[in-house]
C-alpha cells in the first residue's frame, strides 16, 4: 500500500493536512494486528532474555530460583587478593573450560560453513545444469535436510560406530585405514565426526539457497560469454561468482550465526567430550547438570552478546532492506 506514513512532512502538515479515514483505519488495524504478536514475543523472548541476564549477575541456584543475591559481574570476572599480595582471578573470562568451548564453537562454525559453502556451490552448479534426472537429484538432496538432527546424529553414530560401523568397514575395504577408528569417542576424531554429520545435513540448505541465486542470473550472460569463447572456469570466477555473491553472503553469515549456537548434534553424537563441547553445551551443563545456574546464565548471556554482534554485522553487510520498498 502506498498510503502515507503517519506523520507527513512538516511543510505539508502546515497546510491543513489530516490523514484520511482510510489511512487512519489502516494504521489502527495494523497496530491491533501487531499487538498479539508483539506481546507473545515479549513474553517468550524478551522477558526470559532479561531474566537470564539478571541471573548472570546473581548467585542464583537451580534449587532456589528466587533466593539469589546480586553479585555484580563476579560470574564473569572476580578477584580476591591474598594476604601474600597475589591476586586470584575467577569467573567466566578466566575459565579454561569456557575458552575451550569458545574455541570448539568457532572452529566448528568456520570449518563447517566454509566446507558447506564450497560443497553447496558444487551441488548448486550441478543442479543448475540441465540433465536428465535433475528432479531426482533435487529430491535426493532434500532428504538429509528433512531428517531431524537427533535422528541424523543417531544414524551417523551407528555408521561411525567403532566396532560395527559401516564407515570403518568401507575404509578398511578400501585399504585407507588399518585399524578401526573410534570416531565419536576419540578426542582426535570427535570434531571430525561432528563436522561430517553437520555438513551432510546442512549442505542441502546451502545448495538450495545458492541455486536460487544462480537461477536469477540471466541465461544470456552465459551465452554471451560462450560466444566470446571464455573458458568455463573463468566464467565461473568472473561472471557467476560476482553475480551470486550477495545471495551467498547472506547465506554464509546466516549459517555462521546458526552454527555458533549448535547444541543438539554435539550433545547427542559426542556426549561429554571436551574436544567438541560448544558454548551452548557447557552453558546448559552449568545451568542444569552442575547446579551452577548463575554461572550458566552468564555463559549464555555472553553467547547471546557474541551472536548479537554478529547479527549486527550481518544486517550491515547483507544490506537487508526492511521496509520492502513502496508497499
Amino acid at each position, binding site marked *: 500500500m*502506498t*498510503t*502515507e506514513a503517519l506523520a*507527513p*512532512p512538516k511543510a*505539508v502538515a502546515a*497546510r*491543513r*493536512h*489530516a*490523514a*484520511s*479515514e*482510510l*489511512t487512519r*483505519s489502516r494504521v489502527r488495524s495494523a497496530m491491533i494486528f501487531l499487538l498479539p504478536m508483539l506481546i507473545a514475543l515479549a513474553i517468550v523472548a524478551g522477558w526470559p532474555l532479561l531474566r537470564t541476564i539478571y541471573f548472570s549477575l546473581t548467585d542464583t541456584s537451580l534449587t532456589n530460583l528466587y533466593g539469589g543475591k546480586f553479585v555484580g559481574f563476579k560470574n564473569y570476572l572476580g578477584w580476591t587478593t591474598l594476604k601474600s599480595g597475589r591476586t586470584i582471578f575467577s569467573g567466566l573470562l578466566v575459565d579454561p573450560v569456557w575458552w575451550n568451548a569458545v574455541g570448539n564453537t568457532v572452529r566448528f562454525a568456520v570449518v563447517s560453513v566454509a566446507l558447506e559453502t564450497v560443497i553447496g556451490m558444487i551441488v548448486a552448479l550441478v543442479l543448475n545444469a540441465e540433465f536428465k534426472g535433475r528432479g531426482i537429484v533435487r529430491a535426493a538432496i532434500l532428504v538429509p535436510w528433512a531428517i531431524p538432527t537427533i535422528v541424523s546424529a543417531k544414524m551417523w553414530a551407528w555408521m561411525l560406530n567403532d566396532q560395527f560401523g559401516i564407515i570403518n568397514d568401507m575404509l578398511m575395504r578400501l585399504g585407507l585405514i588399518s585399524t578401526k577408528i573410534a570416531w565419536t569417542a576419540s578426542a582426535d576424531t570427535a570434531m571430525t565426526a561432528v563436522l561430517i554429520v553437520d555438513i551432510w545435513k546442512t549442505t542441502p540448505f546451502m545448495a538450495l539457497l545458492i541455486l536460487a541465486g544462480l537461477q536469477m542470473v540471466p541465461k544470456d550472460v552465459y551465452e554471451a560469454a560462450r560466444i566470446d569463447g571464455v573458458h568455463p572456469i573463468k566464467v565461473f570466477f568472473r561472471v557467476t561468482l560476482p553475480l551470486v555473491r550477495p545471495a551467498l553472503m547472506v547465506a554464509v553469515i546466516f549459517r555462521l550465526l546458526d552454527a555458533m549456537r549448535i547444541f543438539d548434534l554435539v550433545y547427542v553424537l559426542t556426549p561429554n567430550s571436551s574436544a567438541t563441547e560448544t558454548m551452548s553445551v557447557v552453558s546448559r551443563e552449568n545451568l542444569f547438570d552442575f547446579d551452577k545456574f548463575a554461572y550458566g546464565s552468564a555463559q549464555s548471556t555472553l553467547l547471546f552478546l557474541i551472536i548479537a554482534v554478529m547479527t549486527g554485522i550481518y544486517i550491515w553487510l547483507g544490506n537487508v532492506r526492511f521496509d520492502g520498498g513502496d508497499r
Partner: protein
Amino acid sequence: MAQIVLKNIRKSFGAVEVIRGVDLEIRSGEFMVFVGPSGCGKSTLLRLMAGLEDISSGDMMFDGERVNALAPSKRGIAMVFQSYALYPHMTVYENMAFGMQLAKSDADAVKTRVEAAADMLQITPYLKRLPKQLSGGQRQRVAIGRAIVRDPRVFLFDEPLSNLDAALRVATRLEIAKLHHAMNTATMVYVTHDQVEAMTLADRICVLRDGLVEQVGTPLELYENPQSLFVAGFIGSPKMNFLTGAHAARYRAETIGIRPEHLVLGTGDEAWTGTVVHSENLGSDTFVYIDIGAEEPLNMREDGTTRHKPGDTLSVKPLEGRVHRFDTAGKPIAG
C-alpha cells in the same frame, strides 16, 4: 452523478511533489479523460479522487462536499484497474457481488443488480466461471461489470485498455463509449497515455504535464486551439510539424506548427521546397517526409494512392489559417 471540483490539489511522496496544484472542474455526467506522458501524475490524480492516496493539500469536492478524508468505499466511486484486479478465487458472479455483499445488501437486490450488469455487458454465460477461465477482454468486461454493480456516482478508469491487444482495445473502447451513453448520468474519469483513446472517448480532455494541468477542453478544442507547444505536439497523430528560426520568423513567431494533414502540394511565397527522404503508405493515407533544411523533415499527409519516391523534389505549403504560431514561452500567438 456527481460534479467533482479539485481546488489546488497537491500530492507529495516524501520530498517529491507529484501533483503540484491542480484546479479542475469535472461536470456531472461528463466523460473526462486525463492524458499525458508517463510520470505526469495522471494516475496519481485519479487515485487521489478514488481516495487510495491521501491528498497532501487542497480540497477535493464531490457535489459540493469535501471528501478529502472520506474512505474510498464511502465516496460513491467505482474503479476499473489496468490489470483488471479481479479476485482470482471468486467466480465472476462473486467478483461482481462482493462490494454489495460487504455493504450487507439484500441478497435479491444483489442478484438483480449483478444480472442486469452482466446482461448489459453480455457476460451472463460466464457468471459461474473463475477469472482465469476468461480471456483478457472478458476479464476487463467483468471488471467493468463489477464497477457498474456498485452503481457509483463516479466511474474511475485507470488505463483499462493497455493490457489488451490492439484489436480488442478498439472493441473495448467502443464498449466503454456505449456504456457512457447508456449510463449518461454517471460521471466518468478515464486515465490513458494514448491520445487516440482520449480523442475518441472524451467529452473533455485534461492534458497533464509534470503534475500540472496543461489544458482542458473538448477534443476538437485541443486539436484546433492548443494552448501550448506541449499540447500541440501531444494531441494529434501523427505529430504536428514544428519549425523554428527563419521558417517561423516569416510568421512573426518563435515556433510554428503545421499538422501533416494541413500541408498540401503547391508553390508560392509560403511554400517550402525539399527532397523526399521517406514515404509511408498506410493504404488510406501516405505520409511523406520532406527534408527542407529544417531540424526535422516535414511530414505531409497525402492520399493513399499517391506515390513519391525518395529523392523526388516537392514543394508544399500550409492550408490557409492552419499555421499555429507560438511565442518564446511556447504560448500561442493570437490571430
